């Protein structure tokens, strides 16, 4: 068995139902908790996961019984979260990243998803092939704070 280059990892697979949005963000936040993040960092991670998983549910598939996968791993003080689907893919990634742009205005989307993720996380990578799917990779570095109670 090949030795993994990270300290810990987890895989999650669920159906593209909107009720799984909270399940996904809470699960990833629980996994990230071992890095001892502060409330703001946990909130950033939860929001970013929620945005990306919602994108997959709304844009990747036409039905709610398709599969969304999350692979997350920890190396030192950095958590990487990969969210992938095998849906339609993103036609124009640069356009999709533009603040307030949404291809689903009828669903009253704000078009702020990728903008929020870019601001809340330390790194965002979008890979997409039309007709094959999308993989979003986000990284968050958790700051190590001195606990004043212990000093």
């Amino acid at each position, binding site marked *: 068995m090949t030795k993994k280059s990270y300290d810990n990892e987890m895989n999650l697979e669920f159906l593209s139902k909107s*009720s799984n*949005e909270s399940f996904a*963000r809470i699960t990833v936040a629980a996994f990230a908790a071992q890095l001892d993040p502060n409330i703001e960092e946990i*909130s950033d991670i939860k929001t970013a996961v*929620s945005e990306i998983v*919602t994108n997959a549910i709304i844009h990747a598939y036409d039905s709610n019984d398709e599969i969304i996968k999350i692979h997350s791993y920890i190396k030192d003080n950095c958590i990487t979260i990969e969210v992938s689907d095998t849906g339609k893919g993103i036609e124009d990634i640069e356009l999709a990243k533009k603040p307030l742009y949404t291809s689903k205005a009828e669903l009253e989307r704000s078009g702020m*998803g990728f903008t929020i993720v870019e601001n809340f996380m330390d790194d965002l990578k979008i890979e997409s092939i039309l007709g094959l799917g999308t993989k979003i990779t986000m990284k968050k570095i958790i700051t190590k704070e001195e606990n004043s109670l212990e000093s």
Partner: protein
Amino acid sequence: MRINFNDQEKILTLEIEEEIDHHMAGNLRREADYEIQRRNPKRIILDFNNVVFMDSAGIGMVIRKI
């Protein structure tokens, strides 16, 4: 969501207590629409004090109300 309506001043206060994501936003929107149509308020206050989580679906909800 808790709903308060000041009859004299026609102020509708929507006190949101749920986590606002895309899943919850649909229900909140329907509930808000119903109250707005029913009460015909002059002013709407969206109270987010008790919201513990909100993503861009919440922004979408607010933008649409404006």
